[in-house]
Each structure stands twice: as C-alpha cells, then as structure tokens.
C-alpha cells in the first residue's frame, strides 16, 4: 500500500532534514523523500502546516503486563502510545514475574506478539527478581534479543554486584539503565525534601538520595568501561555529575521525564497524588535546570516513565498512594508546550530527544525517516491547543499529572510499518 504525505514540514535530524517535503510510504518502508513527489496512489494526506516526524521512541515505559493487567496491558498501553505519537517503547522489567530470565522474556514476547499495537522492545532485570542479590544471566538474555537491562524501580545497592553487572553488560554489549536512588537516604519519603515537604508535613526525599547514586554508578561504569544510561534525572546536582562525566569522555547518557521539566514541587501542594512520583518533583530551579540541560545536551532523551496505577492505589492518603504518573499520551505535547514554545528546543532538537537519540542509545533502527527504513512516523498539528481530560485518556489508568492542563500539539496520524494505525 502506498501512502503519500504532502507538504508537511519534515523534521529528520538523522538526515539533516528540516524542510517542507513530500514523503512516500510503500510496502511498510519509507520509499521516497523529496520536494515534490508524484505517486500512483489515492492515499494522499495533505500535511500543510503540519509537522511530519519519526514516531517517538519512548525508552522508559511500564507496561504492567504480565501481572498487573488491572493497571495496564500491553494492548492498552500500546494503543495509548499510538495516540501520543509513540511507535516504539522499551518495556521495563518490573512486572510480575520480573523479566529476569529467558523464559520470562519469551513469555512477554508472546504477549507482545499477540496483543501489541506498537513496537515493544524489552529490558530485562539486572538482578534476579530485581532483589539486588544475584545477577541475571546476561548471555542467555542477550540471546533472547533484549535491548537493555535495568532494575528500574530500585537501584542495585551492592557495589560489587553492580560492578559485576556492568562488566557483564559490557561483555554482552548491553546497555545498563540506572535507576539512581539510595533507599537508605530516601527511606519512606514521599515528596522532595524542602519547603514543600515542611509545609505539607510529609517526609521528604533528599536530592542526595539521587545524586550520590548517580555519582556511584558513573564511577562504577568508568571502572567497567561500560556505557550507562541514567534514568529519570530530576535535579541539578545529578546534571552536574552527568555533564562532568560527558566532559571526561565517559559513555554516560541520560534521560528525564516530561513532569520533571514542566512541574516543580509546588504542584504537590493540595496533596494531589497524581503529582506523587519517584524521584519526586523538585524545586523550580531544578525544573529550569532540566530545561536548560535539554537545550545544552546534558540530557539526551525525553522518556515518559509511564507508570500506570489504579484509582484505588492513587485515591488514598498521600503517603500511602503509589508513586508514578502515566505519560504516553501527553509527552509530545508537554515537550512542545514547555520546550519548543519556551525556546529551549527547536523541532530538530525535540526529534533528537524523543526519537533519534533513544533509538541510537538502544542500538535500534528507529527514530529517523531514512529511505528504506520502517515507516514509523507521525503527523502533528503543532499549534493546536487542547486540555487534558481524564475521561479522554486511553491508558487503562488515568493517573496523569497534566489533567486539566492546557497543552499544545496534537497527533493527527500515526503510521507504524507504513500502516495508518492511528487517525485522530
């Protein structure tokens, strides 16, 4: 099937493109990219005034299946993803059972094969059961085709073990994604330690609990000569460490989630549990620093850390509510509203953070509109304003911190493998 998308502003930093171009899709691939294409097809989409860009590659998503299908399933999450312009996701392994062995990977693959609507890449756990005690068999996992490893949700506390994991990962050419948190410092905290925690009378999570672990993991990665990717960076101090590591030529990449560069701890005043995330929303200064870090390149990736939780787990006392926010459907719009509109990123920059860089870091052939590549792309109305409504969210769980917020940027079409899988 041929589809011709005309007159859109094509943004494809991989191929140095940011211009009004036509793009032809055929047989699931990008067939042609040119100023003016004539093609023998009735499937023509007029993308005048629209942005045409690669589909988002979200490298931090919790699909919850297997085990917590009440929160989300592979089917519901990928459906929500397509609506948000996300065509590829990296599934985090903190499911039940955890993805910590070849058998579990195959189990998840089967679920994906049967029910997924988008591309799902799999991250496996660093330690068995994510318990931080025994390393998983990376050779076996690599054979199953996993894309990265992470114990996300926790950090591996034992230094020796983490060093061992990094060395193994280096040997197997696998990326280690680090959830940096020292639980002995964050113990039982529920919001950022600071004026807000004092005002609300809630236990605070210090920034130390994050950046001391960032420092440790960078050091261990240096010892092991292994590349690492720091997940969900939330504060200035972590940024400084990452910037320093990059200056030293270490292979350290980093991501942040949309809520960290668009919301600060004040959002928690009023005890809205949709604002309860780990790491917590930090100060306004940290929020600004993250925006700046995206501009400067210290942060390479924007990933949602999509973390669905049921109503029962969120509509309770703040200190007892689960940590996490959904983000697949809002991440692009938040990035447009908070970064492009506010001058921190231009369109090629945004495409780098949300499509190209994550693909490169994971070593997958996505995130670009190269001729011959899979036709995973989206058409976006960049200026259209919309308000996030709880009842309009497609994700099974509705714990979004952006409910009621006005955002700019709407996905009109999502193409996956050359097929229009989402139309607004």
């Amino acid at each position, binding site marked *: 099937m041929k589809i011709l998308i005309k007159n859109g502003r094509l943004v494809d930093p991989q191929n140095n493109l940011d211009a009004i171009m036509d793009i032809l899709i055929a047989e699931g691939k990008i067939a042609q990219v040119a100023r003016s294409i004539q093609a023998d097809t009735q499937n023509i989409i007029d993308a005048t005034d629209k942005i045409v860009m690669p589909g988002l590659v979200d490298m931090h998503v919790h699909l919850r299946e297997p085990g917590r299908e009440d929160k989300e399933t592979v089917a519901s999450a990928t459906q929500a993803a397509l609506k948000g312009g996300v065509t590829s996701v990296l599934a985090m392994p903190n499911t039940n059972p955890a993805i910590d062995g070849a058998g579990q990977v195959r189990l998840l693959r089967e679920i994906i094969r049967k029910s997924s609507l988008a591309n799902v890449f799999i991250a496996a756990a660093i330690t068995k059961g994510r318990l931080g005690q025994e390393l998983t068999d990376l050779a076996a996992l690599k054979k199953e085709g996993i894309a990265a490893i992470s114990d996300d949700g926790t950090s591996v506390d034992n230094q020796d073990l983490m060093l061992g994991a990094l060395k193994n990962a280096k040997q197997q050419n696998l990326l280690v994604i680090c959830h940096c948190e020292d639980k002995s410092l964050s113990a039982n905290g529920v919001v950022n330690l600071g004026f807000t925690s004092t005002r609300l*009378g809630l236990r605070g999570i210090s920034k130390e609990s994050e950046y001391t672990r960032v420092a440790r993991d960078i050091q261990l990665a240096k010892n092991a000569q292994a590349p690492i990717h720091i997940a969900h960076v939330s504060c200035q101090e972590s940024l400084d460490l990452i910037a320093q590591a990059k200056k030293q030529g270490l292979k350290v990449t980093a991501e942040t989630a949309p809520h960290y560069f668009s919301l600060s701890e004040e959002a928690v005043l009023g005890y809205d549990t949709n604002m309860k995330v780990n790491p917590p929303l930090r100060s306004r200064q940290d929020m600004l620093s993250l925006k700046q870090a995206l501009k400067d390149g210290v942060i390479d990736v924007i990933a949602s850390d999509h973390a669905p939780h049921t109503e029962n787990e969120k509509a309770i006392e*703040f200190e007892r509510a689960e940590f996490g926010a959904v983000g697949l459907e809002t991440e692009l719009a938040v990035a447009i509203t908070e970064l492009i509109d506010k001058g921190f990123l231009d369109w090629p920059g945004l495409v780098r953070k949300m499509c190209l860089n994550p693909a490169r870091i994971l070593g997958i052939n996505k995130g670009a509109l190269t001729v011959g590549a899979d036709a995973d792309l989206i058409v976006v109305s960049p200026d259209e304003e919309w308000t996030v409504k709880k009842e309009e969210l497609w994700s099974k769980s509705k714990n979004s911190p952006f409910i009621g917020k006005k955002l700019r940027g709407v996905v009109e079409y999502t193409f996956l493998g050359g097929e229009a899988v989402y139309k607004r």
Partner: protein
Amino acid sequence: MVWNKKDLLGLEDLTKEEIGLILATAESFKEISTREIKKVPALRGKTVVNLFYEPSTRTRVSFEVAAKRLSADVINIATETSSVKKGETLIDTGMNIQALKADIIVVRHNASGAAAMLARQVDISVVNAGDGWHEHPTQALLDIFTLKEKLGKIEGLNVAIVGDIAHSRVARSNIWGLTKLGAKVTVCAPKMLIPTAIEEMGVSVTQDIDEALKNADAVNVLRMQFERDADAAFPEQLDYFKNFGITEERLKKAKKEIIVMHPGPINRGIEISSEVADGTNSVILEQVTNGIAVRMAVLFLVAQTQEKKDDPLDSA
C-alpha cells in the same frame, strides 16, 4: 466579613480577617460555658461526627462538648472498633457518614492531607482535628485566643515554640496563625527536629533555648512525641530535658510574666517540669477551657455555610 468556607482544614489558607472572625466568634461563645445551663440552640438538629483515627482525650472531648453546648447531636467513631479495621478507606468512610446525613465531620488522621482529601470528596463540612504532621488549626486558634486574652494583642508579640517542630502539626498551624497576625515567631529544637527550610515560613530558628526564651512574651512547649513514628535520629529523653526542658531555672532567664503554653498532654519531666506546668506562668488549663469556645465558633461558622447551601432562595 462573612465566613464562606465549608471546611476548616488549616490556618495556611486563612486570611488574617478570617482568623479574626473565628476569634471574635469564640469570644462571644466563651460566656456560654459559664452559665448554669451551658447550652444554646445554634446547632440544634445538626449532627456532628467525630472521626478519630488517632487516640485523643482533649481534642475529641473538646469537640464533643463544644458541639453539645451548641445543641448538636454528636456521634463518636473510634476507628479501632469500626469498619476501618476491615480495610474501609477514608473516602468510603466519609461517603457513608455523609449518607447518614451528618452535617459536619471532625476528622483526626495520621496521614498529612487526609482532611483535605476527605473535604474534596464530601459535600458536608470537614473540620481538621489534626492530620499527620500537617495542621491542627483549632489548637493553634485556641492558643492564639489564649494569648490574645492574656496579652491583649498578637501583633508584635515574641512567641517561642519549643519541641519537635519537624513532626508537629501544632507548630505548623501556630506558625501560620501567629505570623499572619503579626507576631514574631522563633522555633527552638535540636537540629534534627527542625524541618528543612522552615525559615521560609517567616520564623527565626535557634538551638539555644535561653536565646529563644530571652525576649519571649510567650512560649509554646510541644510534647516530645515518642509514640509518633520514630525517625532514626531522635534525642534521648534526659538529654532533651537537660537542654530544652522548660524549668523554673530556665524561666529565671526569661521575662517574669512570660506565658507558658502547652497543647497537652504534658510529659512531666521531659519537655516541661511539673513546677512550671502547675505554676503561675502556665495557662495550660485555660487553653483547654478556651478550646471549647474556639471549637464552638468553628462548628458554628462552618455549619452556616451548609445552611446557605440549603436555602432555596439563594439559588433563585
């Protein structure tokens, strides 16, 4: 000015005028407790439910007495013997109480923000009787009422608050109330019990008890809360008494007429000596008496907003 809030959740959200209104209303109710028949029909036919998730003598009984003096019907739910034990959520409990057509829920809970959460979900009035470490508005109001009665004003007063500030809802509510009314507040505690960035609430901070008491017109002595969730770092009882305890010796270095307050219950010999607690500077029992008037005022004011809601002429 007119009171228009269905709930009383804390002093942080109140204006100076709203606090003034509660105090003035309390003033007019104080006299009722001195009559032979301690009753007015202001809340006759109304139902007040005390929903207490934490143990309490003073606050719960005080609210009950206050409600009854206004002729309201009072129901006490001690969660130990309720369906909360079966896992019923706070919101469900609140909705059920509302379904029983109660008018006001007075709630005490161990989770900060619980009162606000409940107030968002129910249409009836919610009065916060203490939520976690967050606020205990009626306690601060009665503390301020007592100070005003004794010293004639709040503006310009030097008030010291001593004790476990970090975990104290009494401290937070007092800080909001006192600073809004123009008092100068100093908090004094070992470093581990001072919460982060508390200066941003407009208070001075010191670890030196003598410095805190030196120019103080009043000192509010908080209970050392050994039963509330112990964090790893917590001072030893005897150390605390030695360095921060309010004793007659300590008071010698303060103003002679310094007012000594305590929200109760007092731990004799830990944060305050018996001599001081029972001595002439202490207004601890007067605070309790004033608590009745203040709580009558609060119940009366929030009940009024319900009335306005029910008035069919209002929506015409």
